[in-house]
């Protein structure tokens, strides 16, 4: 498959500079533990936030970090999409007989970010060992759906913000509101926020379906079986994102050479 061909070649490239790779990998791994420490120190003051305990918050945190790190590692090309447009290198993709979105994913694959993915997995494992949930099959399925939807939602946001570049050429800040901004908010169970935020994260960017509504089921706070499959709503979010991306290509005007 095309993606794996690119993956192989990116790996080859990154391993050209072994020392730099190892150093960056280690530093990334430790720097982002800071995030988790903030939460733990927060909970050393308060035993719970609106009924959510420290491990429950760490679970949502871990799931969001997992999705984000996954996309940053494997779909980094989209994150850096404005570079591709500004320097006119997008032309190159259009000259190849392959799917453009796919090529955009592959344009950059950042193995260094793999350390963040690894880290989020470690946090998730620690959390799942300590959290007060009795796991049954439906709860495991819910958890898996949550992980998948976390990847999907970041993927859609990445695609959406990448398409934004077609219309404005350079559009950094809006992307950050969507990715980093919502990432920081969604790291907590959104139920702890005011109602406006809850509506926003349910209907505008459906983070609620990634880590809040299914969480309620997971923690036994709700018995509604529909909540098991609620994460799949993010798939619906993905479709228009892709459609907008392709609309953007038609608007693409290249750069002079």
């Amino acid at each position, binding site marked *: 498959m095309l993606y794996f061909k690119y993956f192989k070649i990116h790996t080859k490239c990154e391993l050209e500079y072994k020392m730099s790779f190892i150093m960056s990998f280690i530093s990334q791994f430790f720097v982002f533990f800071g995030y988790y420490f903030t939460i733990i120190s927060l909970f050393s003051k308060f035993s719970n936030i609106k009924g959510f305990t420290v491990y429950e918050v760490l679970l949502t945190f871990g799931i969001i970090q997992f999705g984000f790190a996954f996309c940053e590692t494997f779909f980094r090309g989209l994150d850096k999409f404005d570079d591709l447009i500004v320097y006119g290198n997008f032309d190159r993709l*259009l000259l190849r007989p392959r799917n453009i979105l796919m090529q955009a994913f592959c344009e950059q694959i950042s193995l260094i970010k793999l350390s963040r993915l690894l880290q989020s997995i470690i946090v998730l494992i620690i959390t799942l060992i300590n959290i007060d949930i009795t796991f049954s099959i439906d709860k495991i399925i819910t958890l898996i759906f949550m992980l998948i939807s976390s990847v999907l939602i970041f993927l859609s946001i990445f695609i959406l913000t990448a398409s934004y570049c077609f219309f404005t050429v350079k559009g950094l800040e809006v992307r950050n509101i969507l990715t980093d901004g919502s990432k920081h908010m969604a790291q907590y169970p959104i139920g702890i926020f005011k109602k406006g935020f809850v509506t926003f994260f349910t209907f505008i960017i459906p983070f609620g379906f990634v880590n809040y509504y299914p969480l309620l089921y997971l923690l036994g706070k709700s018995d509604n079986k529909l909540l098991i499959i609620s994460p799949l709503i993010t798939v619906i979010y993905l479709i228009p994102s892709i459609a907008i991306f392709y609309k953007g290509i038609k608007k693409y005007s290249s750069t002079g*050479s």
Partner: protein
Amino acid sequence: MNVIEVKNLCKTFKVKEKEKGFIGSIKSLIKPKYKKIEAVKDISFDVEKGQIIAFIGPNGAGKSTTIKMLTGILYNDSGTINVMGINPNKKRKKLAYEIGCVFGQKEQLWTHLTPYDNFKFFGSIYDLENSVIEKKIKEFKEIFELDEFINTPVRNLSLGQRIRCEIVASLIHDPKILFLDEPTIGLDPIVKENIRTLIKRMNKEYKTTIFLTSHDVGDIEKLCKRVIIVNKGEIVLDDSMENLKYHYLNKKIIELKMKEKVNLDDSKGITILKDKGYNLKLEVDTKKTSISDALKLIDANNIIDINISNVPLEDIIKSIYKGEK
């Protein structure tokens, strides 16, 4: 057989206009003003199979825009394009198998990898089987003399070596048409010559149609049989190289070095380009005055040195750009 057919092609860009300075920037943020630029206005031409065609014009004439529309990078506003029987707007992927592109100013190779790894990768992008790719690489290795550096990472190659690799990378899938956008830019004369020979050989051996843009007159003169000149988005000339030269070749340049000062004035068919007393440079329009008539004006015993030459192609093209006919 025509491999490229273009009819009434148009493309307009909308460009944001900014006023001067910081306040201007803010103004344009609040109420952007747009300016329409007609990059390509009603261009039509055909290219036959196996031709080497030069597509030239000053900067901003619409060359690159036209190439980008032909290769499916940009959508055209109106008009029809037909490349190998394919509409680039609709069947971009299918077209990609048929054409190869080299943009002298944009690299497509992976700089951290060796040319060999690069070629393998590009081959696999085009769904070629491993054995086919190997065969192709071996073939090109000989033609393009890549032996020395095929296993050196691209970042360590010289510009000339890299351009050769770029061309090979775009030929790996056996394209029927090769688009070359300023392939010899920044190269030294020997490497330029080398690249030109290779392009010619490609054209002969594989019957590849070559569509070339260049600012280098040498490229055009040595390679192309047909020239299309565009300026301000319109075709100003579409003719064979021979015709182009012939048209302008009825002008001859005579350079003279004299023993004694002579006084010559412009007369019928003769223009004095330079007059430094002992050194003269004349342009003779042979349609109006023959060379021998022109020479009669000068005392033969007085000449130390004489040199009669054609108007250089570069000057011809310059005058076409400026709109003189």
